[in-house]
């Protein structure tokens, strides 16, 4: 708590110093001068980071100062400190992004309220455009960092039998870069907000209110967090695996995190760079995307989608990982075609970076690009199909234990099936000419990201809840939530496919009367869907304090995280994990994934590159 307060203090001080310094040097006093805001933000971010922990964790050492003998925080205070325990960081991510998810979901409720009938209902167009943009970027951040940052951090070291991440301090830094992102996005409305969607296409994003600058600075920071987190996960999986944990024995969730992290590390900078170019255009008139200055507005879209298309695989790959993990353990069967599935993950990683321009079939880019990008995009359905093969092969003839995580996993198969199939319609040029920028697209990506990844996220939350909290969640409430959310979700987005095909375009505060019926159905369903999260929130909070004590392995699952206490001790395992076989050894008399050997103190932390 003390450090957070110090960080906030230094952050605000940095902001004021930066703003004034910039004003003096540049000779402009205007409070809305965008270059000054950019400079002030750099100072503020540095102040915040130094205060929250970078000074103590790194800088003191560089300056040759004595490390500070501060008592480590205990209990709940750990979650408000620069704690380097991957489990604490995982929980920080999870709680943060569940809260962001609920806020962004609430914004969606207001949007559906406005769209319930044609004409102005509860808000004007300016407010709608800002709320729509804010909903978009908040949900994108949840989708990028919720599963990867939350479960990736918490579970990957446990699943590979390590005692922490490879770079624990860097891990804490990745998390503590997130609060400035949230603050900037939530402060943006005070500076006029941003109304250019989460995609921020110039010239619109170069000519709208100063709130857009807050968006740009926030997202560049978020990108930095994403890159550092990905780097850490890659290094951890590569160097910190327990004895016997060959690549071919990695749990599928760890593989999915590894694959997604490759993308995080390699492509996030393209988004940051494109936003930086927009910022430079706004602040000092560099015309990268301004046709009048020799720039090209379409160039931004190429750069943006070069990140943002693979980004959907950063989102969905860990979702696939949770899905397959849950399906295997709750079907009591080995994961079907494990190696082929890993190959599919890696094929998706490669293909995902060469399909971006399918977002641009109507952008006016060269006609010669349409064919290649359509072919490559449709080719990605082959590795995606392998995920379905693996899922179906795993539940085939299995003993399906219908606990809450399993219900979410099965629901995800259904939802992602619709999301995947409708993706083909958008990859096809002849249909996309019409469907691009309609509600068909809105419904499609909600089926893949919400119906896919977010359902997997919830499967993961219920699946690992006993491990993380040491308590069981309420099963009846969990099952009701799963069924409620599944029905609500489909009742929202099936009508939106329909209104999209009928000719309703997206990102609109109003629409012709002809689309009113479908929108009314979607809006009412949205409120039903929204209420399901009240039950979820209650279940999570109530069970945290009143739930039954969780045993170390309530699901009788095989992977390493279930071989330690719930919640795990600080160094994760009371012994040294030794891995003998694949994690998916169901149906074998003598199957044994791993066991805990003698505690060998000198091995703890060995191999950590510090």
């Amino acid at each position, binding site marked *: 708590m003390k450090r957070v307060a110090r960080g906030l203090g230094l952050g605000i001080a940095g902001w004021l110093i930066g703003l004034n310094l910039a004003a003096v040097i540049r000779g402009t006093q205007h409070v809305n001068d965008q270059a000054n805001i950019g400079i002030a933000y750099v100072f503020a971010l540095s102040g915040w980071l130094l205060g929250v922990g970078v000074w103590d964790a790194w800088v003191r050492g560089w300056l040759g100062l004595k490390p500070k003998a501060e008592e480590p925080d205990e209990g709940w205070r750990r979650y408000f400190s620069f704690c380097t325990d991957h489990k604490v960081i995982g929980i920080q991510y999870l709680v943060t992004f569940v809260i962001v998810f609920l806020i962004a979901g609430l914004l969606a409720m207001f949007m559906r309220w406005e769209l319930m009938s044609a004409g102005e209902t509860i808000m004007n*167009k300016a407010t709608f*455009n800002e709320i729509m943009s804010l909903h978009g970027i908040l949900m994108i951040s949840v989708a990028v960092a919720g599963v990867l940052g939350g479960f990736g951090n918490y579970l990957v070291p446990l699943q590979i039998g390590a005692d922490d991440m490879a770079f624990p301090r860097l891990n804490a830094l990745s998390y503590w870069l997130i609060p400035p992102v949230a603050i900037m996005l939530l402060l943006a409305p005070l500076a006029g907000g941003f*109304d*250019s*969607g989460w*995609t921020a*296409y*110039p010239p*619109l994003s170069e000519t709208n209110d100063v709130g857009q600058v807050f968006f740009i600075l926030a997202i560049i920071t978020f990108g930095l967090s994403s890159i550092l987190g990905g780097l850490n996960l890659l290094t951890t999986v590569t160097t910190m695996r327990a004895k016997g944990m060959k690549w071919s024995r990695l749990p599928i969730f760890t593989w999915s995190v590894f694959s997604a992290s490759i993308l995080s590390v390699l492509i996030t900078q393209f988004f940051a760079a494109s936003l930086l170019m927009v910022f430079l255009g706004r602040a000092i008139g560099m015309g990268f995307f301004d*046709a*009048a200055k020799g720039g090209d*507005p379409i160039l931004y879209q190429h750069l943006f989608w070069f990140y943002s298309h693979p980004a959907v695989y950063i989102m969905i790959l860990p979702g696939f990982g949770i899905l397959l993990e849950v399906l295997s353990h709750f079907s*009591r*069967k080995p994961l*079907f*075609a494990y190696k*082929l599935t890993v190959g599919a993950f890696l094929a998706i990683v490669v293909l995902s970076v060469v399909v971006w321009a399918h977002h641009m079939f*109507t*952008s*006016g880019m060269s006609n010669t690009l349409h*064919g290649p990008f*359509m072919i490559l995009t*449709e*080719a990605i*359905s*082959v590795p995606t199909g*392998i995920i*379905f093969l693996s899922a*179906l092969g795993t*539940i*085939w*003839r*299995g*003993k*399906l234990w*219908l606990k809450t995580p399993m219900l979410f996993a*099965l629901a995800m*198969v259904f939802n992602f*099936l619709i999301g995947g*199939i409708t993706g*083909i*319609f958008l990859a*096809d*040029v*002849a*249909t996309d*000419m*019409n469907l691009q920028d309609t509600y068909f697209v809105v419904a499609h990506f909600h089926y893949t990201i919400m119906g896919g990844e977010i359902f997997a996220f919830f499967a993961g939350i219920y699946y690992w809840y006993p491990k993380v909290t040491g308590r069981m969640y309420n099963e009846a409430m969990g099952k009701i939530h799963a069924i409620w959310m599944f029905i609500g979700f489909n009742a929202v987005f099936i009508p939106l496919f*329909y209104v999209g*095909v*009928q*000719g309703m*375009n997206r*990102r*609109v505060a*109003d629409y012709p009367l002809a689309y009113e019926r479908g929108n009314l159905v979607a809006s009412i369903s949205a409120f039903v869907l929204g209420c399901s999260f009240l039950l979820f929130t209650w279940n999570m909070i109530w069970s945290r304090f009143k739930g039954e004590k969780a045993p170390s392995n309530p699901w009788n699952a095989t992977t390493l995280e279930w071989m330690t206490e719930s919640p795990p001790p600080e160094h994760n395992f009371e012994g040294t994990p030794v891995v003998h076989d694949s994690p*998916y050894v*169901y*149906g*074998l008399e003598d199957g044994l994934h791993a066991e805990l050997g003698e505690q060998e103190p000198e091995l703890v932390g060995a191999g950590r590159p510090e």
Partner: protein
Amino acid sequence: MSKRPWLAPAILWVVLTGLGLWLVTTFSFYPPRFAHEANVSDDAFQLLLILAVPVFAFVIAMMISSLISGKTASEPSEDGPYLPGNQTAVGVWMVITVSLTILIIINPGLVGLAHMRGSDEADMVVEISGAKWAWTVKYPEQGAIASKEMVLPVHKRIRFEVTSKDVIHSFWIPGFRIKIDAVPGKTTVTTATPDKTGSYETEVGLRLQCAELCGLNHASMMMPVRVVEEAEFESWIAKTREEASKLPEDCPTLSDNVKISAFNIAFDTKCLVVPAGKPIKVTFDNKEAIPHNFSIYSDPEYENSLSKGEIFSGPAERSFTIGPFEAGDDRFQCDLHPIPAMRGFFVVREGA
């Protein structure tokens, strides 16, 4: 476990596929089509839908049969069979998914692409220009300009040449199923052949809708479209041209100090009368948060510029001095919104 575990899902698959195919071929949910391109797009959609049915049905059949045969409410007492893979299943799966992918790449993929983007040849050109938040439609061959509605002749292949004056907009007519972005600094092209008459009043798909988020009034950046027989189109063009060239009867008296205001993407006057050979003081009141300017041209095509006004957003008032001009029937317009509502006569008379 029965001897033929695949029998139940196979039957279920056939039943579900049949049901699905019946559904997608019986109920048509496509909105009315008004152009040849709409048929190409909807045919592609329908083909993809038909191909999707057996795929969808297979996954559902597998899930349902696995659930029925294997579900337990309490913890299973024994594991399922050790089945980490099956070469035949994997092989068949790969062959089918790869073949399906190749199929859709060829048809509707490349075939549809050739139809939609094959050639820019056309019988007629229409120039479209977007600016926050209105469309301007110019018929260069006919010499007419429209801003209230776009009228198109039926059975003519039309090439739309699209551009934007400010941010990116997108030209979309749902009834034609075609869309192309309007990008500042470049002209993008798409073609359509309207094949049925109709108008926005009865068909919501006949509208030129901006489909790319462009700021405040994006949702209402829309213009009705009317497809008519060729004779009707000709008479509409003639009427539009006549309206544009007729000097209004209520032109004000001569003054070297003129006032003009803009609201709802329209000027408050169609005509200004000023003395020749004298500088003219203009007071321009832009009453809305949309950028406009006030420029003078010497010709009815608005090509020979005499004076270019500063572009600014309101609500704001600017005063400036232009001229002097020679006597003649000049024109004024807002360069961002060169539509009839933002154009008028600038009549220069020998001074009295």
